[in-house]
């Protein structure tokens, strides 16, 4: 599949609107992503007209900063879902990663060791899942479910109670802000999320590995017959997802400055919802990492809008996310029907 050509078009269609006039016929493939973009813009417009201070740089910057860990998780999840798998373990791995880094930092380990260790925890769990899925042919749903229970259980062994993080490096990372006081700001967490997105974009669309990921999602048997390294790639996507979850955990511990075993309960569902709202098909083979980022921003914006509304109770967040999910999957299904 010539994925790199596709992404050029997506960029042309979304980022620089002027160029689209040259090709009016847009590939159906981009419609879900465009739909997400339309929803995002519409939500921004409605929010901007309803509330003061909604369309300020601070709110928009916080949208990225407060959801940076979810962006990283959604990126990792995109890889797995593109191969037709699913990763339910990410929320628990986030918790384990925060617990491990908090435990190491309070037990005298320097941040130079604790930070990579927090990320590596995710890598190791991802590797274990990948081996279970590929070598032992356990369905991804069950294998990652087992990994989820494993990670949660390990959390309680490492940190039965919440551990505060007072390490100067983490505190410095949490406090650093680049940019003007009132305008757009960027934190190290936000920067890391952006770097991860860029790396994933290049990896998916400009490397052989990325093309193999799409090929496996399109048809594993065909990919194998084409001589693509299916085994290696299938294990690697879970390693990537695990590593992203570990990194997400690190970002979350910077965000919350603590390690707690109950962190990130249900976060895997947020990540999956973001990926689906971003236009990636759960059957695999179709979708874009930038779509997942848009999905996270839509979820974040729902939260922001409900905070701004003030009178709405928190449970409306869940209902709106569920409703949005419904609209998107039905639309995707209609598009798929039209294509055939």
């Amino acid at each position, binding site marked *: 599949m010539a994925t790199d050509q596709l992404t050029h078009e997506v960029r042309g269609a979304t980022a620089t609107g002027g160029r689209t006039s040259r090709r009016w016929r847009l590939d159906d493939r981009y419609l879900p992503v465009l739909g997400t973009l339309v929803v995002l813009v519409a939500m921004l417009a409605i929010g901007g007209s309803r509330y003061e201070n909604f369309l300020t740089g601070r709110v928009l910057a916080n949208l990225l900063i407060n959801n940076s860990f979810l962006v990283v998780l959604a990126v990792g999840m995109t890889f797995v879902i593109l191969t037709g798998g699913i990763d339910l373990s990410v929320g628990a791995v986030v918790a384990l990663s925060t617990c491990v880094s908090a435990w190491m930092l309070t037990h005298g380990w320097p941040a130079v060791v604790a930070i990579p260790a927090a990320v590596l925890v995710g890598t190791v769990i991802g590797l274990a899942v990948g081996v*279970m899925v590929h*070598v032992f042919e356990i369905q991804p749903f069950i294998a990652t*479910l*087992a990994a989820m229970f494993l990670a949660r259980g390990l959390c309680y062994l490492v940190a039965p109670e919440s551990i505060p993080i007072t390490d100067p490096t983490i505190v410095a990372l949490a406090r650093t802000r680049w940019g003007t006081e009132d305008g757009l700001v960027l934190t190290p967490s936000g920067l890391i999320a952006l770097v991860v997105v860029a790396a994933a974009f290049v990896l998916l669309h400009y490397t052989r590995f990325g093309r193999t990921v799409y090929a496996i999602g399109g048809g594993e048997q065909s990919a194998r017959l084409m001589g693509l390294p299916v085994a290696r790639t299938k294990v690697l996507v879970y390693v990537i997802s695990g590593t992203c979850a570990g990194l997400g955990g690190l970002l979350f511990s910077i965000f919350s400055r603590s390690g707690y075993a109950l962190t990130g309960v249900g976060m895997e569902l947020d990540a999956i919802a973001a990926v689906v709202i971003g236009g990636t098909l759960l059957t695999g083979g179709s979708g874009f990492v930038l779509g997942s980022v848009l999905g996270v921003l839509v979820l974040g914006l729902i939260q922001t809008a409900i905070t701004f509304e003030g009178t709405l109770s928190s449970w409306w967040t*869940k209902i709106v996310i*569920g409703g949005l999910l419904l609209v998107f999957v039905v639309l995707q299904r209609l598009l798929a029907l039209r294509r055939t």
Partner: protein
Amino acid sequence: MNALQTVVRHRLFWPLVALLVLVVASALKSPTFLEITVRDGHLFGGPIDILRRSSVLLLVALGMTLVIATRGIDLSVGAVMAIAGAVALTQIAAAPDPGSLTTVVSAIGAALVIALLIGLFNGFLVAVVGIQPIIATLVLMTAGRGIAMLITGGNITTVTSQPFKTLASGYWLSLPVAALIAGAFFVATALVTRRTALGVLIESVGINPSASRLAGVRARTIIWTVYVVCALFACVAGFIRSADTMAADANNIGLFIELDAILAVVIGGTSLAGGKFSLTGTLVGTLVITTLTLSITILGIPANAVSLFKALVVIAVCLLQSPVVQHRMRARRRRTAPVPVEVPA
């Protein structure tokens, strides 16, 4: 020797071994574990406790088994339980006489109707619109708890109603009512699926929906039916769970039960790929998970570590059932067998 091999190869061998190990370990640690005593005409003891605690999970897992047999999955069961508890308890709380039987029956009826609608909705998305089950039910898994909170107004509704409380803590014929309800549902499901053609039809839809449709099976109706049944079973489970505490806690009733139910089904040897299901397997899987949770407290392991042990059991059972390991074990047996099975060229 051959009989032994047949036993070891049986799909429920490893789950039953796990169950036995857990029971024996608990009995060694606490010698009174296996004792069943009669107090006030009710039976008490470890095994009875396991049965009573299994009821909620068994109900959910039964519905899940049927859904999984059609190659589907239902993630919304936990949310359905929360909604069922919320509807029933707010109805009872709003009624003038919470203790009367008619109030309880009408509240239960109202909740069952809501569950029926939820099942129809899930079934519609899967069977008619053609959305993958995991995503179709994820919609209500996310929104469902929000809806339950909407019903309770964000509060934890508590009521005192003797007839409703009986569902969880009552006894009938000296056995816990909850276990009897779950047992009745188990027997009914087994009879309906295995004594009629329904079970085979469900399996055929799970193997190939379009082929079964061409063969004259109403695939769409069957898929629709299993989601409705699953929602109704989850609703009953929701009654028992909320009657246990007599409180409708929208956030916590049935939290993560969908995962436990799927685990119970998988441990019982029903493949997530559909096309084959075993209700007995689901029963064994449910007992394994409940006993695991119970024996962890008995063995003095901190309750927080439950998930760690659950993970180890799941990984062990799944690995032992995985095609690669099964193949290796069979190959080894073949090598040691006195008369080698002929190897095709």
